[in-house]
């Protein structure tokens, strides 16, 4: 077993090395310069903005760098479609994508917006979906993939606690309709398709009210 552990550890290292080679190392300082064009929507502090009834801009501050980079690559390739983002993503080189991602990842996460006026009953339902899911509808909990308190798990599953309600809602609806499908193996799409509009709203406002970082 000891021998096995060493083999597994070596395999793990090899995997990490493989990833590092595939993606250039990001430089947050350079990322700051490249990010000047992002600030109109995502703000100088990376907080983004909840826009009630409009297109909300996600908070990027404190998100996983690899996750941000993948999204930018997906906007570029058209794997993730968004009319506002595509032209900006297209302007970035692979190196700049790595730099911008590293820049936003090292910023302090800011609070989510858009959950301020939710009723207690709606928040309670949102908490249930996020923490335990609703198995009568086969809707699994957010945290089963997004990690403890839905603050993110690795590079694939972003932190969604403290994200803006409008953005979460729009993304879940996009998955539901099939206009967003850049998740691995349809993991998010399969769940989103089973959610009611009420539950999407409830979970979005509850998550927006949660702290993006452990307190």
């Amino acid at each position: 077993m000891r021998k096995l552990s060493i083999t597994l550890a070596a395999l793990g290292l090899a995997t990490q090395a493989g990833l590092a080679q595939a993606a250039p190392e990001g430089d947050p300082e350079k990322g700051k310069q490249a990010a000047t064009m992002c600030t109109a929507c995502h703000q100088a502090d990376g907080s983004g903005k909840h826009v009630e009834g409009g297109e909300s801009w996600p908070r990027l501050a404190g998100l996983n760098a690899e996750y941000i980079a993948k999204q930018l690559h997906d906007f570029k390739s058209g794997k993730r479609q968004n009319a506002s983002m595509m032209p900006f993503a297209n302007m970035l080189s692979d190196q700049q994508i790595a730099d911008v991602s590293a820049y936003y990842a090292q910023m302090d996460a800011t609070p989510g917006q858009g959950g301020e006026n939710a009723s207690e009953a709606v928040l309670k339902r949102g908490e249930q979906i996020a923490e335990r899911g609703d198995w009568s509808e086969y809707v699994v909990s957010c945290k089963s993939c997004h990690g403890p308190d839905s603050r993110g798990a690795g590079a694939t599953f972003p932190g969604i606690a403290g994200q803006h309600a409008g953005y979460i809602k729009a993304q879940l609806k996009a998955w539901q309709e099939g206009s967003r499908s850049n998740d691995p193996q349809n993991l998010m799409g399969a769940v989103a398709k089973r959610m009611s509009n009420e539950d999407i709203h409830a979970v979005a406002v509850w998550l927006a009210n949660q702290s993006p970082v452990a307190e």
Partner: protein
Amino acid sequence: MIRTLVYTALSGTVLFSATAAANSYKTGAEIQQYIDTLTEMGFPAPEEDQLVHIPPTMEDLEEADIHPKLKQTIRRGYDLFTNTQQLRGENVFNNMNCSSCHLGEGRMPFSAPIWPAAVTLPDFRGKNGHVNSLEERIAGCFAYSMNGEPPAYGSDDMLALSAYHQWLASGVEMYPKQDIYGRGFPAPDRPEQLSYSNGEKLYQQKCAVCHSEDGSGLRVDNQTVYPALWGDMSNNWGAGMVRIFTAAGFIKNNMPLGQPNSLSDQEAWDIAYYMDNQERPQDPRYTGDVEETAEMFNNFHQHSMYGKDSAGDGGLLGDHENTGDKPFLKPFNVGVPRNFEGNTD
């Protein structure tokens, strides 16, 4: 208020006749909602005369008319069940939570719902050859699946876990005679051939994104998000999940999360076979000789790769003294016989 249902099939329509239970939390309509969802997700509808039970949720507990101290105890049981890692280093020596295998907090049909244990035990168990109580059954999970040492019989934690099991069973009669709908991890039929290389390929394609390429899973902030499927942080060789059919049933019915029954039977079995060909901590029933142990517990290990040559690297699986993070081999509850032969009827 109806919660225990016996299904009868009539002209292709599933109808149910209801027996009123005093302790009821789910209405007939709510139970039907679960059944509709499950059948929509590719699970079979209940068969004629199967016992269908949908346990109450933690939301139902809040509303329940039971003593507040009992509610606290059940909540503690729920908390232990879903965050068993809080017992790490004492009762648990790997990355598992109870809810890692028993999805939906132990409530879901086809994901080894735990309430049947509360209404079918004490009963004889082939695994250890004697009559087991509910506590003893829970202790079995700690010894094998958690690679640990169970909380003591009668301890606060054991009481809380038992109470949670029993609460989930509320309304079901003791020792039901009917077959239970969705009990265990019903396995698909075993295909003629199992393929290690296909299992490996499928695992890397479909499982590794969460459980990692080396099967170690993922932890965040010292909590398990994705359980380890093999290696030191997984269940040991004595856990039910090492039986290939059990793992195949789990995978088919539950994986990838949110997409049950999306894999073919062959795919589920091949992935299970690949997993079972990897190493994990020693079976606590180990005698010091893997082949002897496999033979001694052949009723169990005939279904696992323990004591056999790995289809991967060819080494003899389980031929080691590694107990993972657990600093001992045998917890207090393993190998303890019990018999009443001295009693007269």
